[in-house]
């Protein structure tokens, strides 16, 4: 089955039946390894929509970062499994109303990480990418590489547990079902087995490279405060420097702000120009939230984001005395 064609059909139908006035999807990007967000409001425009391995963008960020545009409008959105969880969170956090969105789930086999492809081509520019399913062919001036899908998928996808939208109005094609992904927490357990000073050195080396461009924050569907704490200047919480203590505090607090809200879409890590392993801390926090409070971000449309909820009888061994 051709997902792109089915997606186009379903967008056209939604627009023709006036179920939505706007539909958010992806179109072929101007560069071969990227897709561009597409805003569809007429049936003709629907023919530009695509879905393939380049469609990493989590389109739900428009709901929060461009809030005014979507107020009281019927909007359709194409979602991968992770994107759907973001939409659910947007609904739970009252950024959009459930009745105003039409969620169209697409079957996702993972999206690529541009940086991984460029590592394979030794930085040579890719002019064409062909998705063959199991493998991907990348072509450029004087090279033609056949790559295994697993070599270029985003780390988030390699460890994805919920590839299908759990909340949707329309689902295109065959769902993959829940993937029991043991590899997801392996890195964390390995890391935890190290000594405290080894962990500290590794963390410091990793985050010391951060140049504070905030691409990770800007691309994150769960980061949408009007004024981010790093941009506040009265009080100025942390220095706008690349000193590792400043960058590490930025990241620890960023992680806590997305605690119980991070859907592990991996957008932050793909966006990072310094290739910092941001997902590890995200997953660690998600693991704590799941173990302690039993919540998984964005899975339950009738739930409540973990950090704005509580139970009276929670474990509190960590409390002194």
């Amino acid at each position, binding site marked *: 089955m051709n997902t792109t064609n089915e997606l186009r059909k379903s967008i056209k139908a939604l627009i023709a039946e006036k179920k939505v006035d706007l539909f958010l999807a992806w179109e072929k990007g101007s560069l071969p390894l990227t897709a561009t967000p597409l805003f569809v409001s007429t049936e003709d425009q629907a023919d530009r929509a695509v879905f393939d391995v380049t469609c990493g963008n989590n389109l739900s960020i428009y709901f929060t970062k461009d809030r005014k545009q979507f107020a009281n409008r019927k909007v359709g959105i194409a979602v991968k499994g992770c994107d759907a969880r973001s939409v659910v969170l947007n609904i739970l956090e009252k950024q959009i109303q459930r009745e105003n969105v039409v969620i169209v789930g697409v079957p996702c086999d993972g999206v690529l990480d541009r940086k991984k492809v460029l590592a394979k081509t030794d930085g040579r520019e890719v002019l064409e990418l062909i998705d063959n399913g199991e493998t991907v062919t990348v072509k450029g001036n004087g090279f033609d590489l056949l790559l295994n899908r697993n070599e270029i998928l985003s780390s988030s996808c390699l460890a994805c547990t919920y590839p299908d939208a759990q909340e949707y109005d329309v689902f295109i094609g065959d769902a993959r079902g829940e993937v029991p992904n043991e590899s997801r927490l392996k890195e*964390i357990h390995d890391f*935890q087995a190290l000594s405290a000073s080894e962990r500290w050195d590794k963390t410091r080396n990793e985050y010391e490279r951060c140049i504070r461009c905030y691409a990770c924050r800007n691309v994150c569907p769960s980061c949408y405060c009007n004024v981010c704490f790093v941009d506040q200047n009265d009080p100025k919480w942390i220095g706008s420097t690349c000193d590792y203590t400043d960058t590490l*505090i930025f990241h620890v607090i960023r992680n806590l702000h997305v605690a119980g809200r991070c859907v592990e879409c991996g957008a932050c890590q793909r966006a990072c120009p310094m290739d910092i392993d941001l997902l590890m801390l995200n997953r660690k926090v998600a693991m704590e939230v799941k173990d302690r409070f039993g919540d998984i971000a964005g899975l339950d449309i009738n739930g409540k984001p973990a950090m704005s909820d*509580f139970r009276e009888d929670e474990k509190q061994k*960590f409390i002194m005395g």
Partner: protein
Amino acid sequence: MSEWQPRILAILCNWCSYAGADLAGVSRMQYPPSIRVVRIPCSGRVDPLFIMKSLQSGFDGVLVSGCHPGDCHYISGNYVARRKFAVLKPLLEFIGLEPNRVQFSWISAGEGDRFAKVVTKITEDIRELGPATRLVKKT
């Protein structure tokens, strides 16, 4: 030479632990002179950023103390706080900070003795760790 005295920031809830500290004081209980107190309206007011910032500015440890579960002046502030701390603490440990530097406790206004005990304990723990270095910003 006298023993090294750590500097610990104690962030105390106005309705319980702050009064508990007062009680320890007026009852002339002995505890190490290691804490600097900041009074806050509720443990729920404590943003993890306060804790990180304190460590960055050179405190050797941070103690946050609020009302026992069920006793919050604002009904549920300490429950929300508990969730935040429950995630913050393992995260700090994960990145390699010494876990004993950041501690949480519940101390009521009547528990002056408990206050003295908690301060003594955290001071001893931190003395064992020595002065903070890892997250301290060198200017």
